[in-house]
């Protein structure tokens, strides 16, 4: 053995650590190898097929919203590099608007773990991350694709710079007529094969990022523009509209971030501006709804590590929301300020804990503090086995539509309050150098009070009010296996969740709905993706099962379960600095006829051929 130190080049670790981001809380990670399979698909496809999160979608190209653990779309937060993207008007985010190929990493934080990034995610938070990748300083990647139903799309990535400066440009374009065929079994006694029309989608956008760094600090500037124009098809049981309903979405997101590490101290300061425009036009009903929201966000975090075992965090978050819409009475604003204090400690070699306390101030009104507490036990010193348990109280501020929509908005709404508890058992084992196995089992329970619901009011319109309570509980389990032998690599990622979600409290008992499963919350959700690569060839097969979803509160009607599988096969050719990757994928391989939302049919078997041309320096 030599004693002298050997200087090696910088190494970028892309794999996720066995340790979680927030000690005691569950998180999962979708890395670039999985995201790459869905480059030409939307985040809705990526999330729904690679996690146990249920995504409600109104068909190909239609609104797609995530739902964690039986909670609603408004209880799921979507963030971009820790900045919430949920539209303040509706409190949700449409996953169908973002192509997965724009994102480098997806981290999913469940339950109380989401509070480390933002409040209000009772189910959890999906954090979309874009990063420089300092090792790959100069490259160009062009990724055109052609698919069924008139789909044409393209994705461009350009990276340039040096070890201290990076510029990353990503741009995408997607057009699809979306006139897919489906089985109509409600128009008469015999099923008919018909063509879905008025589903046309046009999307475009880009992300431009600049990164600077020196030995102790980094500065980044990011801007993300995207727009989408789409026709909104009606449910097949409804009369089609001529002209069809249309929706235009346009978002501009800009972010500047400064980070500095000095010894045991770390400071991060982020400023962001987010502008969302959503116009809905229904000529037949004489509706021309124009909605503009602007958000200014300032976020500062200070971290200090004491004796390598205790990390203290202080975080301040200021968020100003400004809304200009035809649906409110005048301009509306809402200011949110939060102050967090958190401590995370490795108490012993087998025990760690984290606690966070948050004070939220909404328009100068102090709210009852939130908190989250988690503990992590590592029962075996030499093994990556973990027991994680957590409990948290989280608050969701009402959306501005809930407060100010005309008519029916209620400015006196209270926050929704969620209590979440969970316990996770996770095992990571390495039977051999070429085999890695990880599996986990989680039990969770959420209790949400003061649920905001729209009900018929005193007059002829509906009004928002804090009415219901819901309880969701269930089990999640996941299994990841990675195996490599020579030029053969295989990976399996599988997940299953069982979710029981129902109304609770006296109102539910009096109406006989106590214990009934909430509508559109499947009890069973299963997905698995199996990937192979050998020499130049690679393939992925994914399959998913979504259980019965009730359509009525009394559970008398439901959509049947469905199972959908996809297959992709490709070959990667290296010619010096250039890499060609040709890929053919078949979605809904077995041509299953199914609906995710009642009377919104999903496409049958479809094809997509894509080419990745990458040139590196």
């Amino acid at each position, binding site marked *: 053995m030599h004693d002298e130190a050997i200087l090696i080049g910088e190494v970028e670790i892309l794999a996720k650590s066995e340790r979680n981001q927030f000690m005691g809380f569950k998180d999962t990670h979708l890395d670039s190898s999985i995201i790459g399979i869905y480059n030409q698909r939307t985040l809705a496809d990526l999330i729904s097929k690679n996690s146990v999160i249920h995504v409600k979608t109104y068909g190909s190209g239609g609104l797609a919203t995530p739902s964690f653990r039986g909670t609603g779309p408004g209880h799921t937060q979507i963030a971009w590099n820790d900045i919430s993207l949920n539209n303040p008007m509706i409190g949700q985010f449409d996953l169908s608007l973002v192509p997965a190929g724009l994102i480098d990493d997806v981290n999913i934080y469940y339950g109380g773990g989401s509070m480390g990034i933002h409040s209000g995610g009772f189910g959890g938070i999906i954090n979309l991350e874009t990063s420089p990748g300092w090792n790959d300083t100069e490259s160009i990647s062009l990724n055109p694709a052609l698919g069924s139903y008139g789909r044409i799309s393209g994705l461009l990535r350009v990276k340039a710079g040096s070890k201290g400066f990076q510029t990353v440009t990503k741009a995408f374009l997607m057009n699809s007529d979306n006139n897919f065929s489906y089985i109509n079994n409600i128009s008469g006694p015999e099923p008919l094969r018909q063509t879905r029309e008025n589903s046309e989608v046009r999307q475009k956008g880009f992300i431009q990022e600049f990164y600077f760094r020196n030995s102790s600090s980094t500065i980044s500037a990011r801007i993300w523009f995207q727009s989408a124009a789409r026709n909104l098809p009606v449910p097949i049981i409804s009369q089609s509209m001529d002209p069809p309903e249309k929706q235009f979405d346009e978002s501009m997101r800009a972010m500047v971030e400064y980070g500095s590490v000095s010894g045991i101290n770390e400071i991060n300061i982020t400023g962001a501006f987010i502008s969302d425009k959503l116009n809905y036009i229904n000529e037949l009903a004489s509706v021309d709804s124009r909605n503009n929201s602007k958000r200014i966000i300032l976020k500062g975090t200070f971290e200090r590590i004491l004796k390598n075992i205790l990390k203290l965090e202080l975080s301040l978050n200021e968020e100003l929301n400004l809304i200009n819409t035809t649906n409110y009475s005048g301009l509306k604003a809402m200011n949110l300020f939060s102050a967090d204090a958190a401590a995370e400690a490795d108490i012993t070699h087998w025990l760690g804990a984290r606690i966070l306390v948050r004070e939220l101030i909404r328009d100068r009104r102090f709210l009852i503090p939130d908190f989250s507490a988690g503990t992590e036990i590592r029962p075996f010193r030499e093994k990556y086995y973990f027991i994680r348990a957590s409990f948290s109280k989280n608050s969701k501020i009402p959306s501005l539509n809930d407060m100010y929509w005309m008519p029916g908005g209620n400015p006196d709404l209270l926050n929704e309050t969620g209590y979440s508890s969970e316990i996770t058992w996770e095992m990571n084992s390495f039977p051999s150098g070429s085999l890695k196995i990880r599996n986990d089992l989680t039990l969770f329970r959420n209790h949400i009070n003061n649920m905001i619901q729209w009900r018929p009011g005193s007059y002829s319109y509906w009004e928002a009010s804090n009415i219901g309570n819901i309880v969701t509980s269930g089990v999640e389990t996941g*299994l990841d296996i990675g195996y490599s032998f020579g030029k053969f690599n295989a990976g399996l990622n599988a997940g299953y969740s069982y979710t029981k979600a129902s109304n609770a409290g006296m109102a539910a008992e009096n109406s006989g709905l106590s214990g009934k499963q909430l509508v559109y919350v499947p009890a069973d959700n299963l997905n698995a993706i199996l990937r192979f690569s050998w020499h130049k060839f690679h393939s992925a097969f994914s399959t998913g099962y979504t259980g019965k979803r009730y359509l009525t509160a009394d559970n008398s009607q439901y959509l049947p379960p469905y199972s959908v599988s996809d297959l992709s096969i490709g070959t990667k050719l290296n010619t010096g600095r250039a890499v060609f990757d040709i890929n053919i994928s078949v979605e809904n391989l077995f041509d299953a006829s199914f609906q995710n939302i009642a009377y919104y049919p999903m496409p049958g078997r479809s094809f997509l051929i894509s080419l990745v041309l990458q040139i590196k320096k």
Partner: protein
Amino acid sequence: MHKILILIAIPLFYSCIREVDPVITDISETYLSGGGVFILNEGNFRSGNGSLSFFSYDSLKIFNHVFMDINSRPLGDVPYSMGIDGSRIYIIVNNSGKIEVAGMNDMRSVTTISKIASPRYISFIRGSKAYVTSLYSDSVTILDLASNRVSGFINLRKSSESVVSLSSTAYAASWVGGNKIIVINTINDSVKDSIEVGVEPESMVIDKNETLWVLCNGGWKRENFAQLIAINTKTNTIEKRFIFPSVTDSPTCLQLNGTGETLYYLQNGVRCMEIDASDLPSEVFISEQNNVFYRMGVNPSNDEVFVTDAGDYVNRGKVLRYSREGVFIAEMIADIIPGNLCFKINPDPNTQ
């Protein structure tokens, strides 16, 4: 490794054995031959869970999902109103843009008249044709009842809601944002006049004196007072105008009893007034108590009052039955958002 496989296999197995058949309402078709009340359950907009219920006087029971159970397909999205012509019923399915034609006594589908722009109400014109109003279209659709096909349109230049007919004249109300009753010559299917009334004429009836009563609810913004207006159908002029006392009053669902002498409407309960009354009723005839009344109808053969309660508009609602004196008789569970009612009169008056 075995443990891991078991962890995955258990939920898979569990998911396979949990399948339970949906609840199917056990009904027979025979109940339809007697008298009763059809209840249009609107269901939730764009959810396609609208349905038809029938309360049978023979069994004093309510039967839900009647159309679905007999024809093995859903009725559609927002079944809104219906009419009876001879032995056939015409169900206006608003957001499906269609009219389902079925046998009155067996509910078997005869045909579906589709591609009607947002239909709302139907009025039969001398047994040979019908007018169908539209929420979105500026025209009334003319149906040929012999062929059950669209035979033409009458351009009103505005959308229409309630429609009634008398002799050779039909009256169509321009509801959304409107304030006019369009007078139509039913012989040549042309507009011959219009009558300016209050804001948003919502419902209409014609009494025994052939007076047209129009209930204008004042609009949802509550900027105008609601009005109940009596129109002389011979001169098409306003004879009486009752203005509701508060701008927040929002009466709906004007109905008439079997003899054409008493008017009923909903306003914080059921209210009724004689057609020759000089004032609006200050007291409720049937109080809501713990219910929220949504729609109502009066059985023309016995003046029983049926009121629907849509509840929270998400779960199944109720139908409440009251005697002609306003005394509560029974409560029945219908389906989601029970709305308009249509009475099926048994030829034998002793049975209902």
